[in-house]
């Protein structure tokens, strides 16, 4: 008996160091994503599960960051690597589909408690690919038109009104084209939803049909005209910069960036947002777990913590002004009214439900971008 308990102790001691695991989290996105994990989520996780550590790796802003993670998976898959070097990845919506189709990911959502709190449709379908169970949204992000109410009393409520407004006020509207960041891309997608001539729902949900892509000529012709009276800005931040300096009066922006810039004083507090009909796209960032991680249990714990109502309230909504990844009502319970109101002051939850659209499915997305390159000069 005594010997047995010694043996048990020995086993326990031998197992102890094994518990001190290091979790590698690769994240696409700007530096603020890396900071979020390094400065907030990591320490919180290490406090909750003493002994384990979190290492965050930033792969760069925008789609290229997610592209790098996908390529990393491609490489490890091609090399038949037994254990992959990423335990948790944070990627853009567009890249989740290929990862699921290529069988890189673990179907983990039903394994964690917070999985039940996910309500939005974009956790089931990612730009036309069924990803149900493989992803947990970290947050939802939305684009909208920011404007200066000192100069514009009645902002355009729809794309049609916007087109007229721009004609009447040349160079006062600025956006960053399609090569300088996703807020410009989003504006163009919204333009096609509005004037594309086809059914916008087909663009968002599929199926992909070559015929559909032939219907956009008039829309791009209109956009070409529109661009003559618009100012082209250098990047997402470039649009905000120009708004702040008063060089333009209106432009498409990411809602979270807009609020963060206001909070840090880089943008006047008077600036406002409007979401024009029929709507503009937004997108979630997703947490995924590669199937060949060596720390599956720990990775699930990490994501469960990250998607818990408390962390979503404190980290996602309060710190970053992102819309929560899980059911907003569950998050609301953890927040004071003021913080909640701030997030929904210009764009109401109803606006968001009606006019917050997904991006088109990947083949339409690419076709629209390429048509823009071809037709808008």
């Amino acid at each position, binding site marked *: 008996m005594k010997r047995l308990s010694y043996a048990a102790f020995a086993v326990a001691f031998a197992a102890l160091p094994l518990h001190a695991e290091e979790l590698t989290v690769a994240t696409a996105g700007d530096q603020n994503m890396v900071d979020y994990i390094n400065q907030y989520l990591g320490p919180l996780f290490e406090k909750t599960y003493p002994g384990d550590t979190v290492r965050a790796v930033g792969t760069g802003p925008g789609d290229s960051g997610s592209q790098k993670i996908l390529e990393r998976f491609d490489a490890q898959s091609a090399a038949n690597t037994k254990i992959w070097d990423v335990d948790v990845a944070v990627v853009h919506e567009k890249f989740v589909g290929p990862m699921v189709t290529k069988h890189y990911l673990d179907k983990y959502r039903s394994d964690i408690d917070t999985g039940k709190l996910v309500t939005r449709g974009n956790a089931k379908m990612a730009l036309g690919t069924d990803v149900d169970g493989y992803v947990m949204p970290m947050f939802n992000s939305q684009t909208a038109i920011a404007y200066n109410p000192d100069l514009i009393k009645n902002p355009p409520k729809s794309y049609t009104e916007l087109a007229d407004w721009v004609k009447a006020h040349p160079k006062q509207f600025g956006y960053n084209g399609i*090569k*300088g960041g996703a807020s410009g891309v989003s504006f163009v997608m919204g333009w096609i939803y509005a004037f594309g001539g086809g059914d916008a729902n087909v663009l968002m949900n599929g199926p992909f049909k070559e015929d559909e892509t032939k219907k956009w000529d008039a829309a791009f012709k209109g956009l070409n005209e529109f661009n003559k009276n618009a100012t*082209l800005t250098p990047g997402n931040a470039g649009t905000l910069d120009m708004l702040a*300096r*008063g*060089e333009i009066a209106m432009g498409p922006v990411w809602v979270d960036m807009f609020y963060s810039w206001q909070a840090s004083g880089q943008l006047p507090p008077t600036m406002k947002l409007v979401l024009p009909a029929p709507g503009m796209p937004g997108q979630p960032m997703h947490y995924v777990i590669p199937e060949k991680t060596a720390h599956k249990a720990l990775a699930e714990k990490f994501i469960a913590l990250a998607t818990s109502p408390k962390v979503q309230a404190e980290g996602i909504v309060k710190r970053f002004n992102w819309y929560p990844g899980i059911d907003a009502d569950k998050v609301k319970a953890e927040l004071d009214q003021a913080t909640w109101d701030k997030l929904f002051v210009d764009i109401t939850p109803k606006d968001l439900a009606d006019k917050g659209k997904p991006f088109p499915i990947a083949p339409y997305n690419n076709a629209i971008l390429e048509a823009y390159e071809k037709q808008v000069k």
Partner: protein
Amino acid sequence: MSGGSLFRRGETNHPLGTKSMSSKRLLGLLLVLPALLVIVVLFIIPLILSAVGAFKVDGAFGLGNFVKTFELYTQDIVFTLLITGLSTILIGAASVAIGGYLTLGEHPRAVAILKFLYRWPMFIPFIVVGQILRTFLAKNGMMNNVAIELGLTTPLDAVSLLDWRGIVIAFVWKQTPFVALLVSGAMASLNRDTIEAARNLGASRLRVLVEIIVPQVAMTLTVGLVLSFVTMMSVLSVPLMINAQSPTMLTADIAFRVNSYGDYGVANALGIVSLVLASSVAWIYLRASMKERA
């Protein structure tokens, strides 16, 4: 010429026999091998792979990527050539002016100040140049604000230079010091007799610069400009920061193809196009240097 004479000297003066000669050669080859391997593995092979990739469309070989490249990006190819060409010309003019003043300047203090100042931009990375100019050249940026304060322009007339002009300004500002450094070095090592003689005969300083000095440093100037041209062709940060619109530089298009479409085929084709543009300039340089050696 210098390489050739060294080699001859080694051969004729070497007291050792042929056997040790060949083992020595083998040793030399071994010593070069690591460097050669690095170049082959990290440079030559990826270059070949990317060249092959440019001709691959859906797994089969074809010219589809090039068709698409020229269909979508002809305007950008021309734009890239014009921007880089114009920048190269301006860099050449500015660096000859700087080198010329350093060589012919008559106020020692002004020469010393210029000598101290002109090199600074060389140490600033392109991305930082892009960032600085983004706020400096904007419509309500520092440059226009200063001009407005000085009464040189009015707020209504102020224009943003954040388009092709911004890219040219960034390139010229960043690359001039590099070429000026080479050129002024070459000018400083010239035999001053010809300069003094021309001055004594009454030639103006400008005439001395254009007719006596520049022809003698033409080779160095060409080298500097060719290197600058190739460097500017490959800069991504400046067009991205200042003007990622249409038309834009090829580097921004390559990044866009990869990041937005995951399309390496057309990106590789664009890469080949810019390689051809860059090497055509290198060819001019090689031909000139061959002529000089002959």
